[in-house]
């Protein structure tokens, strides 16, 4: 993947704080973190577009909550 484009990302202070915290926790640069977030968003959007539902499950109670994505 050598074909790269550059963009400026405008975030407020809270958003930037989350980016910095997650990047630090995951051991990623901010660029890599945003790329991961984009992949996740595309993955979920694709599934919902195909008519699938995306859930998160509590490991103990097994309660499921549907993941909502803006469409």
């Amino acid at each position: 993947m050598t074909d790269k484009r550059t963009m400026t990302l405008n975030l407020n202070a809270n958003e930037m704080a989350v980016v910095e915290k997650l990047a630090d926790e995951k051991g990623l640069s901010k660029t890599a973190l945003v790329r991961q977030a984009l992949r996740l968003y595309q993955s979920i959007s694709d599934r919902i577009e195909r008519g699938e539902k995306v859930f998160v499950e509590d490991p103990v109670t097994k309660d499921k909550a549907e993941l909502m994505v803006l469409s």
Partner: protein
Amino acid sequence: MSSRLIGTYQLVDRQQGKLFDLSLWQPIADRHSQDFEQHWRPIFDTHLEQINALGGDGSAAAALSNIQDAHWEWAQKAHLIKGRLDWQSFAVEADGMTQGLMFVKTQGFAREPSQHGKPLAVIELIATAPWNRPTLVSVPRFKGVGRLLLAAAISLSVHEEFEGRIGLHALPQAEDWYREVCGMTDLGVDETRMRYFEMTEAQARAFLES
């Protein structure tokens, strides 16, 4: 996106007793999926027919013959992930023929305690051609196709800033290889009813240096 050549690597051709150049491609192209359908699958089907003709437990016999992946639909999978940012695929070629195939998802989270929650690359499907498998032919041709693909997954992980971390669910016949040869951590059988293995940054470095 068209398939591009990542590099050329020398592996032992056991039938000719010499080193042979194999090329690594990303992503899997139509020709690779076609090789599976036209050249790999007929061999798998022949073995499955022989197993069925003998009667007994077909799935156990298939496991012993190392063909539990015979039903994998590589072309369908390649079509499904087209345009997806979280999937990468690789193919190994030699002599104008596909020798190995792999799908990797770059959207996993590690489970091993020392790296829990960190991102990692997950090998979803990995396979070598039937003529490279000791359980199917008396003299398998290329030695090291699986190792080459595993190294490609580790390189992808490094490229994505995952420090070489990878994870995978192993088919039963491959469990020893991942544990003993690759040095991956065995995290036991999970909800998929398959054994899950993970490679840490240190294990990845050791694997690449071995």
